[in-house]
């Protein structure tokens, strides 16, 4: 039996307006979802062209969850998005050409070729670069929330994890700390139903991951992660509750992994019927159709947003491809930070 609250879908435009979004915001969300998908689709092409070293991961099917949550963040809030959360980077304003440069190991990628994939973040946009040990980022997000509490700042931290990562002890430890100290944090679980090849019934024995929240003394909410507006509404509630001193929330977005774990994985273990069902609930198409029906998105508007995104990504690809590969002669630089690097307003 579910313990977490199961959130209702978002229906009318009126309801959306009550959640704080005007029509321009709604089209902006659509644009961010298209950019998110487009960046990853073009990443796939780059991979097939042999331009991306190593492997390549996408968050196809997770666009509503990542864009919806990031839209609910305030300008001074921070987060630790993972590799299915490209939409967070896009919504916070990371420029796509830098992402392509990152994918290709070029010098203009945020990690300057030292790390690949979505192992990147622009700290000026409130994002912290992930590591491959996914649940290890949650204690870091919790530490950000601890800093806000110590300094009594009205800021919120968001930590992302998957239902696979939820098995790790890190998750338990930091939720224990956040619950006991009522820290201003939202834990966002992107439950895409597969941890590589492992299905949910071998990952956790409760009905929902969010059911666990009760054990840590805070609220758990389950939302349809293909419904960007419902995700936004629930994330906004959780963020503002944390900001007001109401403590953490565990927000579980039930989402999809429309591709394999990474490019090398054909996901033969996922039942075919599941892929068919996922195709029907594609979050980008779902939102497009909602906008047409409920927000009177016109052919012109839809076409123009699509064209803008296409132009943006084409230009981004061109610019990224001009970015040089890194030189090996500074490989050993920067193992240690220098004192001057702490002479920033942020660290003073």
């Amino acid at each position, binding site marked *: 039996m579910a313990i977490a609250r199961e959130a209702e879908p978002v229906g009318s435009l009126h309801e959306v307006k009550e959640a704080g979004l005007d029509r321009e915001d709604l089209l902006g969300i659509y644009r961010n979802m298209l950019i998110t998908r487009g960046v990853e689709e073009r990443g796939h092409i780059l991979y097939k062209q042999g331009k991306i070293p190593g492997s390549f991961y996408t968050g196809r099917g997770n666009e509503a969850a990542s864009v919806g949550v990031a839209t609910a963040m305030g300008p001074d809030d*921070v987060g630790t998005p993972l590799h299915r959360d490209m939409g967070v980077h896009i919504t916070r304003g990371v420029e796509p050409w830098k992402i392509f440069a990152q994918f290709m190991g070029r010098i203009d990628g*945020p*990690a300057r070729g*030292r*790390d690949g994939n979505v*192992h*990147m*973040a622009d*700290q000026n946009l409130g994002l*912290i*670069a992930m*590591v*491959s*040990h996914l649940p*290890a*980022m*949650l*204690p*870091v*997000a*919790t*530490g*950000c*929330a*601890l*800093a*806000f*509490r*110590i*300094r009594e700042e009205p800021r919120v*931290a968001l930590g992302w994890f998957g239902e696979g990562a939820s098995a790790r*002890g*890190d998750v338990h*430890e*930091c939720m*224990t*700390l956040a619950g*006991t*100290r009522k820290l201003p944090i939202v834990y966002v679980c992107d439950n895409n139903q597969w941890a590589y090849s492992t299905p949910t019934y071998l990952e956790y024995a409760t009905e929902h991951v969010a059911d666990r929240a009760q054990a840590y003394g805070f609220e758990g909410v389950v939302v349809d992660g293909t419904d960007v507006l419902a995700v936004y509404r629930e994330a906004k509630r959780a963020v503002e509750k944390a900001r007001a001193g109401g403590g953490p929330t565990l927000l579980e977005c039930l989402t999809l992994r429309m591709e394999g774990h990474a490019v090398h994985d054909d996901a033969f273990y996922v039942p075919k019927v599941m892929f068919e069902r996922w195709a029907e609930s594609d979050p980008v198409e779902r939102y497009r159709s909602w906008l047409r029906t409920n927000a009177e998105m016109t052919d012109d508007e839809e076409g123009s947003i699509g064209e803008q995104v296409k132009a943006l990504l084409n230009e981004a690809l061109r610019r990224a491809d001009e970015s040089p590969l890194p030189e090996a002669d500074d490989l050993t630089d*920067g*193992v*240690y*930070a*220098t*004192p001057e*690097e*702490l002479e920033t307003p*942020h*660290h*003073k």
Partner: protein
Amino acid sequence: MTEMTYLQAISDGLRTEMRRDKRVFVIGEDVGVYGGAFKVTLGFQEEFGPWRVIDAPLAETAIVGGATGAAIMGLRPVAEMQFSDFVSCAWDHLVTIAAKQHWRAGTPIPIVLRLPSGGGFSGGPFHSQNPESSFAHIPGLKCVCPATPEDAKGLLISAIEDPNPVLFFEHKHLYRRIKAEVPEGRYTTPIGKARLYQEGTDVSVITWGAMVYTAEEAAQQLGDVSVEIVDLRSVMPWDKAAVLESVRKTSKVLVLHEDTRTGGFGAEIAATIAEEAFEDLDAPVKRIAAPDTPVPFSPPLEKAFIPQVEDVAAGLRELAEY
């Protein structure tokens, strides 16, 4: 100058920084109300309040990962592991995140981990280890191992000021046993600079932490051999120049540490001496370290594990007569 124990000097250094810089805060198990398992933070919560001296749940990953997040947000966390042995629980957060974040993402992580380490009082396999070499091997971390009260205070202040993750190995067997004059007020001791603990001309001992005193006592037993003791004070970065200078002076060298032998940091020092000062040596480099076993509990076993004064004296004698 005030006479202080090694433990009081650590408290004094920490208190000095917390009074000076409100970004500095302490987090760990039992550090607040109880004042820490060894009482290093006794009275801190009364002075600085519960949000700067934070009693954490028994959750090392939340403590170290949390310290990392708070540091990225501009604070200067000093996290205590109740025993250095427990840092194994937070390996990921230290090694996977904190150590690599600056190199790969350009984010400085100014955190200090206080790690009560070392044996000598039947703490057994899980309360006695000296894990500094495991972390010295990780690019991006600094490892500090003070031997004297003066250095303990100065190096702790330097560690807090440092923009990198610093592991501060404080030797438990020195806490109340070692007492010395400590300068008043704030001062820093540079990380990566060795100190010539004792000048000599016949044999050099390269060591750190509690073994400095073992070397000193051994040297006293050998009235006719002039022993030079180089206290490294930090093993990462380590003062290669000071070691090579001493080796060139005496031409005979004993590398001594309380950690186990194979892959211990002494191996790195011996290899460097072989690479860079081979022509200056009059004898093979000698290592004295603990055997490759876990730290034993029962007193006769622990005595056989930790290098003793007699072992070091015999090693020095052997080198002197080579």
